[in-house]
């Protein structure tokens, strides 16, 4: 006899990786590590040895996802900031209970170690593409945070380099491995909202960074390496701490967060090897008399696929307001990024959803995908070609904003209908960082 205390519409909880239908649909045969003998008592000789390049806040957030796997070991960390370098080494050493992790101020020394198989790259955006290219050329496999490149040209170069050098590469757009997003994509693919016509995305409005005079480079910083490929610029504390909002070092929130959603859009539409054909964007920029940052504060960006499907990205509202919504002629389905909550119209769509599944904050499944692929020499879910095509959309929007014009795009030849935009496909890197 049962006497349920509380009753509300619910589903049976079952959190089992193999039970996720969409994962099975989209990823290579991912088997539990235990089946492969990979997550138990893996002998040291069979462990994948990792190094971390760029060990700031993001690296510290994602490192636990890596460290939870017992078939890998971090043996080196690198950062151009001494304070971060030492704290990352301490974090890794504490986890393993030894002091074996080596710290490198110059990431090239880490890459030169033949016993390092793979790297986690969690630097600032300016280093994502180039750092990955360096790593691939050194024979390393890669997990790199998003956005994967600064320009469309760099993204293409990254994809080509990984292919040429056989590097297994996973971009940190981990929502492909997140149950809520997998469910939404699955429902759209199976026609539960009818014929898809619009994908609506929202990221938050970017802050503005005030004007500030240069100051001395703090002790313990290798500023030239920090700048990387970006044109040399005097050290300005606020600029360095908010590098996301300057074209030289990043591409603003529209790209920084938008690439997660364009990746989802590409995946759901099955356009991972191509992309939209038209772009348009308008934005609101900081006041140059008071502000130093140059990327938009708010924006609305449109793209159109050859199939007629439209993507709309809003850069507005607060951080917590971000979402992805698929709209079809018979309904819609939405994932709220902050809460991982899925809503739909008609609500009956939600009856297909299994309970459980970690939110995007837990990238373990995404990391596991990479680890399996490192052994099988296949490309993971967010491989460089896939990631490049997703970020291209955001980068094309940025070119619309910077050129103040609509653009047409040939996704096969990867060229715009505008000479000036084509000239901005690539930006020459600053020596000595010309991979």
């Amino acid at each position: 006899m049962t006497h349920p205390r509380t009753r509300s519409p619910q589903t049976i909880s079952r959190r089992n990786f193999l039970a996720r239908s969409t994962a099975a649909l989209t990823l290579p045969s991912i088997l539990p590590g235990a089946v492969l003998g990979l997550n138990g008592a893996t002998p040291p000789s069979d462990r994948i040895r990792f190094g971390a390049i760029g060990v700031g806040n993001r690296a510290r957030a994602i490192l636990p996802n890596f460290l939870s796997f017992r078939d890998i070991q971090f043996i080196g960390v690198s950062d151009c900031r001494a304070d971060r370098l030492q704290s990352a080494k301490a974090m890794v050493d504490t986890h393993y209970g030894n002091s074996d992790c080596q710290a490198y101020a110059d990431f090239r020394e880490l890459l030169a170690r033949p016993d390092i198989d793979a790297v986690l790259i969690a630097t600032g955006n300016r280093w994502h593409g180039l750092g990955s290219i360096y790593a691939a050329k050194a024979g390393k496999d890669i997990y790199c945070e998003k956005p994967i490149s600064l320009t469309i040209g760099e993204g293409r170069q990254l994809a080509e380099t990984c292919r040429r050098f056989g590097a297994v590469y996973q971009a940190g757009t981990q929502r492909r491995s997140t149950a809520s997003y997998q469910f939404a994509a699955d429902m759209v693919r199976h026609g539960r909202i009818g014929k898809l016509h619009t994908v609506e995305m929202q990221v938050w409005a970017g802050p503005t960074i005030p004007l500030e005079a240069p100051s001395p480079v703090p002790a313990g910083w290798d500023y030239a390496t920090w700048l990387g490929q970006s044109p040399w610029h005097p050290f300005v504390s606020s600029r360095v701490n908010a590098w996301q909002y300057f074209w030289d070092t990043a591409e603003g929130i529209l790209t920084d967060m938008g690439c997660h959603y364009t990746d989802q859009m590409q995946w759901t539409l099955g356009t991972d090897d191509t992309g939209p054909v038209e772009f348009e964007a308008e934005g609101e920029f900081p006041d140059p008399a008071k502000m130093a940052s140059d990327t938009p504060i708010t924006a609305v960006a449109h793209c159109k696929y050859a199939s007629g499907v439209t993507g709309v990205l809003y850069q507005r509202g607060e951080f917590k307001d971000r979402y992805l919504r698929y709209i079809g002629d018979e309904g819609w389905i939405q994932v709220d990024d902050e809460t991982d909550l899925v809503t739909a119209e008609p609500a009956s769509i939600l009856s297909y959803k299994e309970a459980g599944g970690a939110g995007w904050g837990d990238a373990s499944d995404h990391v596991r995908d990479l680890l399996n692929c490192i052994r099988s020499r296949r490309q993971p879910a967010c491989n460089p070609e896939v990631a490049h095509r997703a970020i291209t959309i955001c980068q094309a929007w940025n070119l619309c904003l910077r050129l103040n014009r609509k653009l047409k795009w040939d996704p096969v030849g990867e060229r715009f209908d505008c000479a000036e935009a084509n000239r901005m496909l690539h930006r020459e890197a600053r020596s000595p960082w010309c991979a």
Partner: protein
Amino acid sequence: MHQTAKLPANAAMEPSPQALGCLLALFIGCFTSPASDLGDLTAQAANFQTGQSLAPLRTLEAKVREAVAKPAQRSEVEAALIQLLNEESTYEAKLFACRQLAFVASEKSLPALSSLLRKPDTVGIACMAIATLPPGKADEVLREGLTATQGNGKAQIIATLGNRRDRKALKEVAAAARDADLSVASAALSALGEIGTPSAADCLSQLAADTTGTLKSTVTQAELVCADLMAREGSRKQAKRIYESLLVGPQPTWVRRSALAGRLGVENDAEGLTLEVLRGSDSALKPVAIAAAPSLKQGSKTSRALASSVSFLTEQERTWLVDSMAARPDVDARAFVVSQLGCSADSVRLAAITTLGRSGDARTVSPLALRLANCSENEERRAIESALVALPRDLATSQAIRSALANVAGQPRATLVTALSRREGAGANPILLTEAANPDPTVSRAAYRGLARTAGQAEAPAMLALLAVSAAQVRTEAESATAQALLRMSNGSERSSLVRLQLQTAKDTEVRAGLVSLLPLGGDGAALQSLKACLVETDPVLRGVAIRALAEWPDPSAWSSLLQACNTSADLVLRSVALRGLVRLANTQPADLTVVDRYKQLLHTTRNDSELKLVLGGLGAARHPAALELALPYLDRSSVRAEAAVAIRAIANALKTSDPEAVDAALSKLGTGT
């Protein structure tokens, strides 16, 4: 203040020409400063330093954008930018000019940019601008710059020449590859790879023979890049030569893997090479060969050859081959994957199951169901369930799963039922209702679990009827699923009516008890009357369930019945349940004198400190001055003083603005002030 026009959130993909015109005017107009004259702007921009207002630069930038759309103005704007490259301009001004020139410069800019190439602090930004110019004169300027620079600057120019694949620079770049400065030599080696011609390959070949130390790996990297570019551009033989040399030498594993992947791309007999690796002993190369299997020549003959190599592979390699074969569309490849469902190795079977789910169709159901009937491991069963869910959501596949149901019983049948439920959502409800009545509790339980997720108004009557015939082992799932179905009905009275109707005809005590427990979901007067009737039943089980149901009642209409049950029940557990229910009911409406009166009744009802603590715990939520007075005397009772204090603080906090005097008095008694 922000600077450009803001589009409405619902801006259309193609705004009208008038709207675009307005936006453009606003965009440009917002950047216009009093010093809108190009000469003045250039003069201001030339002195720009970090930290100063960016307005002159942004205004100039807007003019550059305008010039993009109006080629007639382009020359004038370019001249202004060239002027910013003067010796006297600040570095920041030159950086700004180079950024703009990167997309509007013509050959007219080259002389000024050329002078920047010769200076270490500006060579980088000069290359940024020159790199976007078309081949020809720009390459000449870069090559000339090579002779005038050393070290980092030279490396910068070489890298730009490499990126531009300037074949005319081959001689200079090849010479630079032997430069004593390692950064120059390294950049030159990379550039040779990027140039990617047979001549560049020859240079690299010679350099590979001569180079030692840290540059050795740079040469190898350049050779791989060069080979790939040659392969793409038709020089397959030369590319193959490089790949072969890198495959046989004492190279790191990753180089040999890259070389094998490259060679498979240019090899006429890629199938033969793949089979040779698969059947060989080089375990480092096997994953690459297996990963290449999907792209080998399509057709059954190749698939059969690949399948015949399975005996040369380890268990893990076999799982990868299964995955690769699933990507081949022919019948023999599919047959191979299906055959691996019978493999003795768990991981291979799981790989076959998972890949079939990803790549299969209605024909896949039968072998998966067959495997299901023979498997004993939960993990494998769950994998099969997920594979069935992942199969195409078409009618043929769903029909195949329904047909498979006819041939299995027990756990395999339960798995098929669950798969159907997960695939079809509410669409599977009719078959789930049928299976809920299955005498096998494993199957019935699976059906009820599915119904709990999807059943609603349409299924609720049948599910209530099924409760009367449900086996004792599945009653938990049956009641829970029925409750979920009832909750999905929007009308409480309808819920009540359905449950009462069933209750009228139910004879079995357990069945009646189950139905009584559902009455609170109805929550109307008629349901409450039915519940009250159960309180006088002679059967103690039914009475107990009725008290529990009353304790779950959604509103205070059950108050007096529950209070009476609390006071008269001899069963201490039921009394406790009732008291908790009463505390909950007391707080289901905003605090007023009625609520306070209910708490008075509850405090009077309590028989021990434990019960008193429970009531005081609820009293804190009654935000009313009279509740404060009710709680205060208990501060003098040491055994419940802590609970009373918590309640008083909670009430006081809520009343501090509306009734500060009472709050101060209460808090002073507590020994603290506002």
